[in-house]
């Protein structure tokens, strides 16, 4: 069984370490906040100017001055801080944010990522994605392994316009957990009931399988 979006988020949450500052992108990455392991304290950065993002507000307690980068109403947690957009990207550029989780349309075996533009379609913009991928020390991509047509999104080389080059360190897809190394994708874990062969068949980029590949457990 391929992982659900919630399970992808749950698996990524296991990469969190105590004391991490984390930037979560829009979509599946946002769900990671729901699965922060017990006993671990992380602080969420929202690039529109907040460290210490909390959950959505209770109904009736929405504050129009308090939103996240997805323009959703949010709350703060004790110990949070506000700052301007220049400082926000300053801390990102300076490598202060420990982990960035974002979605992707394509990832290459060398760690290139494409997630902002499809030629021929209305281009909405890159927002903060290019800044994040250019500077983050550790980037995990949450994505589907294939597109709706069944074609691999893990490629030798991205076909879509790039967001950043040689930056992605790890991919958690609905089928597998993979590291990106100098040699290409390295298969670390597979979704429950998904075979190594299926993952190989659905990974167009170079894929290394070293020994037994354990199943993820939930």
């Amino acid at each position, binding site marked *: 069984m391929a992982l659900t979006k919630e399970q992808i988020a749950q698996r990524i949450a296991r990469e969190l370490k105590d004391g991490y500052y984390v930037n979560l992108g829009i979509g599946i990455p946002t769900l990671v906040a729901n699965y922060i392991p017990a006993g671990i304290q992380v602080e969420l950065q929202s690039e529109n100017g907040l460290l210490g993002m909390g959950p959505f507000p209770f109904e009736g307690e929405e504050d129009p*001055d308090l939103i996240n980068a997805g323009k959703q109403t949010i709350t703060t947690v004790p110990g949070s801080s506000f700052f*301007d957009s220049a400082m926000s990207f300053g801390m990102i550029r300076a490598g202060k944010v420990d982990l960035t989780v974002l979605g992707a349309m394509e990832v290459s075996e060398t760690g290139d990522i494409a997630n902002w533009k499809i030629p021929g379609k*209305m281009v909405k913009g890159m927002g903060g994605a290019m800044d994040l991928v250019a500077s983050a020390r550790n980037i995990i991509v949450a994505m589907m392994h294939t597109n709706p047509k069944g074609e691999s999104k893990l490629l030798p080389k991205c076909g879509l316009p790039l967001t950043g080059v040689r930056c992605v360190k790890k991919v958690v897809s609905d089928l597998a957990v993979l590291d990106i190394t100098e040699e290409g994708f390295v298969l670390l874990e597979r979704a429950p009931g998904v075979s190594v062969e299926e993952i190989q068949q659905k990974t167009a980029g170079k894929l290394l399988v070293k020994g037994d590949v354990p199943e993820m457990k939930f």
Partner: protein
Amino acid sequence: MNKVVAGPGEAIHDIRDGVTIMLGGFGLCGIPENCINALVASGVKDLTCISNNAGVDDFGIGLMLQQKQVRKMISSYVGENAEFERQLLSGELEVELIPQGTLATRCLAAGYGMPAIFTPAGVGTEVAEGKETRVFNDKAYLLEYAFDADFAIVKAWKGDAHGNLVYRETARNFNPMMAMAGKITIAEVEELVPAGSLDPDHVHTPGIYVHRIFQGSGYEKRIEQRTTRKK
């Protein structure tokens, strides 16, 4: 030091066709609602607008787009606006998309009196096309120039007659660095307080950067994505 003007009409009276203006805000959060309405009423056109987003169809910069007052938008994300899309596809509107951190830092550079910055955002992508690249400590960076804006229009929570500004929560966003970057900076505030009542230790934008200030009214503060949880 009295920079107080009567209202948005007076604040924007000398904004003419064809100028470049910065507008603070992230999405619809922290946008200068009063000045945008005054710009719409003034009918000024052929504007180049530097703003992280372009509003929605019936609010924010979207109101200026409806009146076809904007010739060019410089933004990082413009996804929430159907009229914007129509004008872009028909060629009426020019758009320059730049990374959000680059946008913020090009404002900051202008306010700090620095002509340019080096940033890694966009290296190896189409954003880098035609730009000078330099390598520092084995990492490539793009040369990006400080913005040159005729006017900056910002929104703050509180301000005083000297132009000192305090922002609230994430409504701060692009407002402080845009306030620093305009040749003429106009600030609208929710509450104009007497000089001396803001704690100098808590001022976010020192008044030297602000040329005109007024207390706005009728703030709608529209929420773009109302998300809640149950008690």
